[in-house]
């Protein structure tokens, strides 16, 4: 129709979106490509954006519902004892037996790490491969490394994301206990000041556990694009050393070897640091004192992080 020589009468019956005058009627303007003249925030912004996106991926946010199931399930289970304990104490208080209920409650700052340790290990084993494996499997690294950041920045962002996720899993329940105790107490300010003393131990233990578990699980996850292999590898690293330590401990001749196995066992090391930080009696099998076990946790983390950095430096894209 475009070739028909009837311009004057075209207006009313013309094809939708055009008019005789040539002005589009209600059509979508194709602005096409435009230059960007705005700010460029560079590397620091890039890294913080990567941290935020990775942290969201840790919990499956922005992904399918199935991706949320494991992280939120484990985090929810880790929160459960705190919620139940607070509820029980609150109920007991209404019945006039609050003090006794609190005194016998097994859920407290010092014991919480032990209650949720298994969940924490599972969270790291499940989510670290999720963060790295996806980029490895689908070769997304070439899109990421060709941006305003360095390979090491990528590693740092992933470590920070898993550390923050593990901190959240540990500290949110502790916060719930704290709020519950403060709010159910008759004298709020006294209850708060009584609990503040536990803060360094709570945060210190959570930080040690988060850094140690994040670095070990990410280092192992960087070696496999297959999520199932990576998760299995991480579980072996978490479960095998304490198992070996337990077996060797029972045979008198190999007691020293058993101690060495316990030294590289994340669960034994973190159990020891928890006892030390909260001043609990030392019944651990690790055989070194609290500061030394914290130093071991830091040393293992440092080695794992070094492996991770080297691995990504050498990775072909």
């Amino acid at each position, binding site marked *: 129709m475009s070739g028909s020589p009837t311009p004057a009468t075209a207006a009313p019956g013309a094809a939708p979106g055009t008019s005789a005058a040539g002005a589009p009627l209600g059509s979508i303007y194709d602005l*096409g*490509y435009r230059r*960007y003249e705005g700010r460029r925030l*560079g590397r620091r912004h890039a890294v913080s954006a990567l941290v935020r*996106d990775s942290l969201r991926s840790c919990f499956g946010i922005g*992904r399918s519902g199935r991706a949320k199931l494991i992280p939120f399930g484990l985090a929810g289970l880790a929160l459960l004892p705190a919620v139940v304990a607070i509820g029980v104490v609150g109920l007991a208080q209404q019945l006039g037996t609050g003090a006794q209920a609190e005194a016998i409650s097994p859920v407290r700052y010092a014991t919480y790490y032990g209650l949720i340790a298994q969940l924490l290990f599972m969270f790291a084993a499940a989510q670290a491969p999720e963060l790295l494996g996806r980029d490895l499997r*689908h070769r997304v690294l070439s899109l990421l490394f060709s*941006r*305003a950041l*360095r390979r090491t920045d990528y590693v740092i962002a992933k470590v920070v994301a898993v550390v923050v996720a593990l901190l959240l899993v540990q500290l949110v329940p502790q916060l719930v206990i704290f709020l519950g105790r403060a709010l159910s107490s008759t004298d709020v300010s006294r209850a708060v000041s009584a609990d503040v003393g536990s803060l360094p131990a709570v945060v210190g233990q959570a930080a040690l556990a988060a850094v140690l578990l994040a670095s070990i699980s990410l280092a192992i996850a960087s070696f496999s694009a297959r999520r199932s292999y990576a998760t299995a590898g991480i579980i072996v690293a978490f479960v095998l050393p304490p198992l070996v330590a337990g077996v060797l401990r029972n045979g008198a001749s190999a007691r020293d070897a058993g101690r060495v196995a316990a030294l590289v066992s994340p669960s034994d090391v973190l159990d020891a640091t928890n006892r030390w930080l909260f001043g609990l009696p030392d019944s651990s099998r690790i055989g070194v004192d609290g500061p030394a076990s914290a130093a071991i946790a830091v040393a293992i983390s440092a080695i794992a992080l070094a492996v991770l950095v080297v691995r990504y430096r050498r990775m072909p894209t």
Partner: protein
Amino acid sequence: MPLIALEALTRRFGQVTALDDVTLELEPGIIGLVGANGAGKTTLIKILLGLLEPTSGRAIVLDHDTQRAGTLVREHVGYMPEHDCLPPDVSATDLVTHLGELSGLPRAASRERTAEVLRHVGLYEERYRPIGGYSTGMKQRVKLAQALVHDPRLLLLDEPTNGLDPAGRDEMLALVHRTGTEFGIAVIVASHLLGEIERVCDFLVAIEAGRLRSAAPLASLTGGTGALRVEVEDGADALAERLTSAGLTTRRDARIVLVAIDGADGHVYDIVRDAIVDLDLALVRIEPERRSLEALFRPGAIVDEGVAA
């Protein structure tokens, strides 16, 4: 200052030399990077991005050394890899927005740019669906969009038509051409298909086994050779003899007589016409000989091969 300056660039992988002492300066434009598979195209692109370290030599892109200031270079360079590189579980919008931020754009700006570039490459409603369900053509568009989201000054496209059907190829090449000409972004297109390069590029860099084969404007490579092709049914021998005796330089090639125009006086066409009429030959065609790009890649070919050689 040139867009790209390569100084004695060499890259070895063990015993294999992927790039061998390449020295080159390139100005903005649409530059075709041609060579067979394994000639060193991808290696060169990765060095330009600062993703691969040269064994020796330097690469300067947008006035920065790619090794020392890689992040600054990459802030203004877009890269479309040859292979599949898209995660299937996110939408094009989410992926490209995220990648824009990783190039340094503020979040809101990256969102806005993502909407624009996805429209520019022709992705509309489907951009909210997970990439896993896209066709190859759509995936290639997403790959181009993520390379454009931060409005780069230089675009590096590695085999952008890989895996596309003929219609998809045409669209992708048109898109590349438009991006390079209308928006003033310098583009380097690596391809092993000369025909594609010929359609979109204005400058050509040819590498072979890691060595620089030629770097020249496309027009100079496909322009006239300074010879006239005269094709006749029979009697090419007689025609050649006649023209030679008339003082022209000629060369035989089956039914074709090549006559040098350069250096001869202005009556070459007249002499050829008269000779054909006198010999009563059946003329098939008469045309200036043009260089073909394929000739560049024939074994032993020399770019400035002359007719009289």
